[in-house]
């Protein structure tokens, strides 16, 4: 290879690399450094070796946060991989007025979390519409404590995450669906394949790479869940703090002038390793699926 060609990828990557290094990677190394200290913003700190990590391992709060986060990923990611795909298929046909529906379905994405919280808290309150509906349909006897029971609170937060993410991933799927050659569908139709079979045999294989992308992106987002919990479960993360996620705990522990930045940094590092592990696992999983 000639030197020019050897350099080309790096020229193309240069701006992105510069931004990533200066504004993300270098600060990240600072986080790594801090994770070995008892640093607090106001008072500074000293190196304490692996003490933070030891403290994490024996902290109930940390394991609770990690468990909730994992649960969040397990529930939310499959829903956010599948539901937006259906939504995208629903708004893909070029029928009159469809642009209006597309834009409307996108509005939850741009709605502020505060307004979203306000509305969902209203819907889910004890005497709210959801409980009214459930009781009218005789699904439940008394009202469900969506906003005060730890398990239901976690589910409520997940519901909001999925609801707010639908439009976002729908947009990603829309471009992918455009790439599915129409002839494939028509050929399948001539063969007499029904909707469900066309979905399985034509649509799904064509959007598989996009599903992986959406899986990775939604998994990363779910690992970092914070705002939904804060808005729905309150600043204590539910009664007794039982609904906390990792980022919730990281923020709680590390913010303010007196925050334990070193300890929070150690927790972020663990979150980082978990997330990278999860992404690699997702990629492996999808590759195996492809080969199978």
């Amino acid at each position, binding site marked *: 290879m000639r030197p020019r060609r050897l350099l080309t990828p790096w020229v193309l990557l240069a701006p992105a690399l510069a931004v990533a290094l200066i504004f993300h990677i270098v600060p990240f190394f600072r986080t790594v450094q801090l994770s070995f200290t008892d640093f607090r913003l106001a008072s500074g700190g000293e190196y304490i070796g692996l003490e933070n990590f030891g403290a994490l391992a024996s902290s109930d709060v940390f394991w609770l946060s990690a468990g909730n986060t994992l649960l969040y990923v397990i529930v939310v990611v499959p829903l956010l991989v599948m539901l937006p795909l259906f939504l995208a298929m629903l708004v893909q046909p070029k029928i009159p007025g469809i642009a209006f529906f597309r834009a409307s379905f996108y509005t939850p994405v741009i709605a502020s979390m505060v307004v979203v919280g306000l509305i969902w808290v209203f819907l889910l309150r*004890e005497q709210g519409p959801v409980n009214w509906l459930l009781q009218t349909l005789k699904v439940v006897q008394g009202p469900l404590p969506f906003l005060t029971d730890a398990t239901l609170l976690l589910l409520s937060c997940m519901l909001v995450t999925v609801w707010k993410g639908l439009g976002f991933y729908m947009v990603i799927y829309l471009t992918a669906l455009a790439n599915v050659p129409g002839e494939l569908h028509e050929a399948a139709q001539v063969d007499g394949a029904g909707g469900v079979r066309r979905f399985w045999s034509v649509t799904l294989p064509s959007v598989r790479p996009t599903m992986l992308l959406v899986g990775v992106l939604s998994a990363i987002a779910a690992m970092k869940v914070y705002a939904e919990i804060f808005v729905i479960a309150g600043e204590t993360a539910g*009664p007794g703090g039982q609904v906390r996620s990792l980022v919730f705990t990281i923020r709680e522990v590390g913010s303010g002038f007196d925050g334990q930045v070193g300890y929070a940094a150690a927790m972020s590092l663990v979150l980082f390793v978990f997330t990278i592990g999860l992404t690699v696992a997702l990629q492996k999983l999808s590759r195996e699926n492809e080969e199978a």
Partner: protein
Amino acid sequence: MKLKPRKHGILGAIALASGVAIALAGCSLEGVDTGAAASDDELSKVDGEISFATLELSSNPDLAAYIEDTISAFEKEYPGTEVEWIDVPFAGAQEKFAADAAAGNLPDVVNLNPNIAQPLEREGVFLDIDAADPELAAEYVAGAWEGFQVPGQEGTFGVPWYLTSEVTMYNAALYEQAGLDPEAAPETFDELYEQAAAVSTAGAGAFYGIHPALENRFMTDLAKIGVPLIDEDLVWTFNTPEAVEHVERLAEMYQTGVFPADSLTQNLNDAKEGYQAGSIAVFPSGPNFLNGIQQNAPQVFENTRVAPQIAAEGEPINMSVMGLLIPKTSENQGTALAFTKFITNAENQLAFAKVAPVLPSVTEALEDPFFQDDSDGTELSKARKLSANGLERAENLTPVQYDDQVKNAVLAKIQLALAGDLSAQDALDQAVEDANAITGGE
């Protein structure tokens, strides 16, 4: 295409080397930049430019105009000075000031409350006002001045600016619906809770007597019934028998439906909204909230009555303090101090109180007849008078060590007690233990 992971690519090496080098060389493990206090000479020099950061004041156009006018007046009185005003939204303000403090970049005069300021005061970030001007303390309300002191340290690190002290607001129409006398406001906690129970019974789920708003009131309510919150050695001590009784009472009220079921995980904002929706009958709040009710819920405003803040016999009532602090990293501490004294003087604070329903922190301004004049018959004037008159027994009841982290740790346990998942005693014991673990008390 097939990509083989290469763990030691050129890129990885570059990233690692540069990252580690820059990160470790550039960043020490020292705390915030504390700067140095100016000499007396420097402090007496009033000239040049300063920046002045307030917390969320420009939301009110009249108030914004007041600040701008006061700044012009200062610049006129001290020719050669220039004050740049920055208003900072409350959301994210801590992060902003944290970044500023780390970079030694704090504004020359910064508006903080005692709780946010405490850790920085402790590290010596701010100018000691007692040392800079020993005569100043005498002019201010003592309880407010003490808000900017650090346990175990000499000095006062900020000047109190404006104060708010709650009054009891209640919805007379809901009182009437519950068969209570709409003119007889609750005067003791017992009365408050009895009346709240009566209202909630009458409301049968449509409206309630009171919202617990634990986030806002739990700690101050303990202080108002005489529970010692924290001792001289900064050890939390609020798990006394009186506190247990209080929590048991809250739990009983929650479980019998005196509080709304969802109130367990809600905060002050929800209580506010509930009051404005007409679904909560009593809401203790600073008089400045009255404006909000008028704008958001005109009907509820019509029915709102005000009464004095409730505290147990012989115990203090609560007030909130906002202050102005001068970082020692400031290169113009003389002008910063002069401006701080200027904007907090009696004349300017009185003007402030006439624009917004707050109380001044200088005693001279408080003696103005304006605070006693409720002849216009509005609830706002009544509230102003009530809160001004309460000031002599008011203290900043929230301990300065009660930051967000401590607060959340404590409330999490109290929520469990209310829900009946933990006994009041256990909840308080665990809350005290967790709080001490955070602040380093034993």
